[in-house]
């Protein structure tokens, strides 16, 4: 570690990369949330459908 060559520097950077990969893993709940959030992609369409239906249902008794 006392020598300073580009090869030593790159070795050091790859050790940081290796070390951070272990120490910087995303928590399991973050990854789980990220996977689960996929089901939200249709939420706008579903909400639009619900809000379209609601007035019709509310109007029904008055008719």
């Amino acid at each position: 570690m006392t020598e300073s060559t580009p090869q030593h520097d790159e070795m050091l950077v790859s050790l940081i990369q290796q070390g951070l990969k272990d120490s910087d893993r995303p928590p399991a709940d973050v990854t789980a949330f990220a996977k689960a959030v996929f089901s939200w992609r249709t939420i706008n369409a579903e909400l639009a459908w619900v809000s379209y239906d609601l007035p019709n249902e509310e109007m029904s008794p008055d008719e």
Partner: protein
Amino acid sequence: MTPMASLARATHGELLALAAGGDQSAWNELVERFSQMVWSIARSFRLDDATAKDVSQTVWLRLVENIQRIDDPERLPGWLATTCRREALRVKGMRDRVVPTDFQYDVADESPSLEAMLVEDEEAREVVIAFGSLSEECQQLLRLLTTDPPLSYEEVSEIIDRPIGSLGPTRARCVERLKAALLARISGAGSDSLDSGDDAQ
């Protein structure tokens, strides 16, 4: 459902197209591929774990919301990085409006973090402990330059809002600082002797 083996070989764009069509397994592969990168970027802004979690989750939510609108799917890493940066700065700005105006190379803290203790390889663990003693700016830069998958210099430049030409020299100085910190740890001299180094130009 697309076979897992073919998903592992798929490009970012192919995965994004499959996910946009409703393929949950393609989405899961995107999460596996990029969750560490997103997390590293969030952490590079020195956010605590709870806030970094919020930022990461918001990034994935934004991707779901915009999955049909990504112009260039192969630039997905850059899109995620930019979205993460914006969200991290937004939450950081709400708490702390003081932004450092220049890089600092001073030694901040020499105590090993709990995260560093998780590193199995002894040599890498020593490096991560020494890394923890670098300034926030050096830690952020080295973190961003070692993500997996890697970010381009252009993307890193955008994330930290620095000229692209300054990244190479700054990286070299931060690596020099890291070597000094590592040497100090190995020799048991502590961080007090670091100020005599000639690398803080």
